[in-house]
């Protein structure tokens, strides 16, 4: 039987399959269906320095092989994460990745500061830089190398030894430039990718299907985009640990991301369909490894074969 323990940079995970941010809350609801200590880890919903209400509804619509969402990072704030969710998660034996968000560099830093002082037990922090930057005409941090470097540098300085994984947006001309900026800022690894910009219109009413007009596309529809992104970054930065995510519906999708260079993967939208999807994907990876006589996940990371 294959052993699924995986190394993600400085972290040891019991398996390479995590729950993606915003798709598994802080674990409580999902724990009815799956033991949290069976997951490789849980990346909790992005948290901000003060509670965010999020956007009006409708916040989602289904699209071919996926869905669009415009939630607006509704969350109850870092303080309540620290007081209510974290102790509970640790008690369940979960490996906890915090996810932080903000609209200014300072907001990111303030969340990071709170996690440094109050977040004992957190394994790592994902930095959700797919947020509008109020100081740059609402351009996303993740769309500008300078803003990416600024956020990542300051967050790393605040968090010190906790590993950080900036989460990059695929909606850019050169992902490698953004990745380079994040790595120069002190990123310990990268999370690839966040949702893809999209939009849908109700032709009967001629209105956008989302109240937020534009949203993030997720689900199987974006899987090839994620595979390519991981492939590009792994090719250009072969030693950087990558959390691959985007469109995983089964073990094969996860394995594609691993072969492209991801050391761990995160399952997002599929958690909505099957709350135990992470476990199913991990089991599928194990049976693939048995079938291919692979004993260590590390042998698969970046093991893509390209002729010539």
């Amino acid at each position, binding site marked *: 039987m294959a052993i699924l323990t995986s190394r993600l940079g400085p972290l040891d995970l019991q398996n390479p399959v995590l729950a993606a941010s*915003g*798709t*598994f*809350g*802080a674990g*409580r*609801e*999902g724990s*009815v*269906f799956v033991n949290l200590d069976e997951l490789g880890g849980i990346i*909790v*919903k992005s948290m901000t320095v003060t509670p965010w*209400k*999020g956007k*009006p*509804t*409708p*916040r*989602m*619509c*289904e699209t*071919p*092989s*996926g*869905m669009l*969402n415009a*939630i607006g990072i*509704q*969350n*109850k704030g870092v303080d309540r994460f620290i007081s209510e969710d974290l102790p509970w998660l640790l008690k369940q034996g979960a490996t906890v990745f915090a996810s932080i968000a903000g609209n200014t560099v300072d907001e990111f830093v303030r969340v990071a500061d709170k996690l440094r002082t109050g977040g004992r037990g957190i394994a790592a922090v994902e930095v959700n830089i797919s947020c509008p930057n109020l100081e740059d005409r609402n351009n996303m941090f993740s769309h500008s190398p300078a803003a990416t470097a600024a956020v990542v540098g300051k967050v790393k300085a605040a968090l010190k030894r906790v590993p950080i994984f900036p989460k990059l947006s695929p909606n850019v001309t050169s992902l490698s430039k953004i990745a380079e900026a994040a790595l120069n800022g002190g990123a310990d690894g990268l999370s690839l990718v966040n949702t893809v910009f999209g939009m849908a219109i109700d032709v009967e009413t001629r209105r956008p299907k989302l109240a937020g007009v534009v949203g993030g596309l997720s*689900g*199987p529809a974006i899987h090839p985009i994620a595979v390519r992104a991981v492939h590009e970054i792994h090719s250009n930065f072969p030693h950087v640990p990558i959390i691959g995510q985007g469109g995983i*519906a089964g073990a094969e999708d996860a394995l594609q991301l691993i072969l492209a260079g991801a050391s761990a993967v995160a399952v997002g*939208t*599929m*958690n*909505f*369909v*099957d*709350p*135990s999807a992470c476990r199913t994907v991990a089991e599928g990876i194990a049976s693939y490894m048995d079938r291919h006589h692979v004993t260590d996940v590390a042998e698969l990371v970046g093991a893509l074969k390209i002729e010539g």
Partner: protein
Amino acid sequence: MTMLLASGEVLSHKKYGEHYHSLTIVTPDIGERVRPGQFVSIRCGENRASILRRPFSVYRVHKRGGWASTIEIVFDIRGPGTTHLSQLRGHSIVDLIGPSGRGFVLPKRRAHCLLVGGGIGAAPLFFLADELRNEGHRVDVILGARNSGLLLGAIEARRLASVCRTTTEDGSMGDTGRVTDVLSDTIRRCETEVVYACGPHPMLAAVSRICLEQKVPIQVAVEELMACGYGVCMTCVMPLRRPPKRDESPEDAVVYARSCTEGPVFNGAQIVWNGAADLVAVDQGELTPAGAPTRHGGIEDPSDEHAPPGN
């Protein structure tokens, strides 16, 4: 209360009235726990083009006899999910999550209950009516739809209710007009102490407004778009007003509560139906009118209970 991931076997699929479909599913774990107003999320096939589960209210449960532990849903064909369900036949296996959400709160003491349903939205009212009658409450019903073909369970309702009124917009059955045209009159005539409503949101908004005016507690079951149905995605939220804290504006006192876990049944007087226009502060006192069975039969003052506890 706990939800389960369960599989069920289709016992029967039949046309329901002129327009709707009914699916009876054997699923003991869910059938034994579900309460009126709760729903199930059904995976409609393995097709990758349409992946999300679809939520359906439980229309009826059968707890005894040959049909024990079955749930029945009724639905309207709308898109890929309901088309898939309409093709299921006996012995098909379906993958369900449920029972989900918070159902209706039943009165603690004997009460006159008025159930108001619009179109297919009336589905959960029949299960509710059964339970209310079992507990000795009086049940009156108003059903409305665009035309008689879209009225759900009109014959059934007549059997269950002390007073049953129907309205159709084209006058093909009952009074011509909408449920709200006969609501105030029915509340007065039936000495209604609590109203339960489900249907399209504009109808629920209008019903809630009338109930607020009449000082009758109102519980509504909403149908907001749901991606997960178990509380993790935050897509299904309803704006609720809670009593403003000191120095807080009415806008700040609005919280987005998940309709899949904190709902789908909410206090209709607490929902902000029309955005900012609705925020012209409602006196919170009106939400729990004296003399009405709110404390007992209505929803407790929700205040912080409805602040999103999860994510």
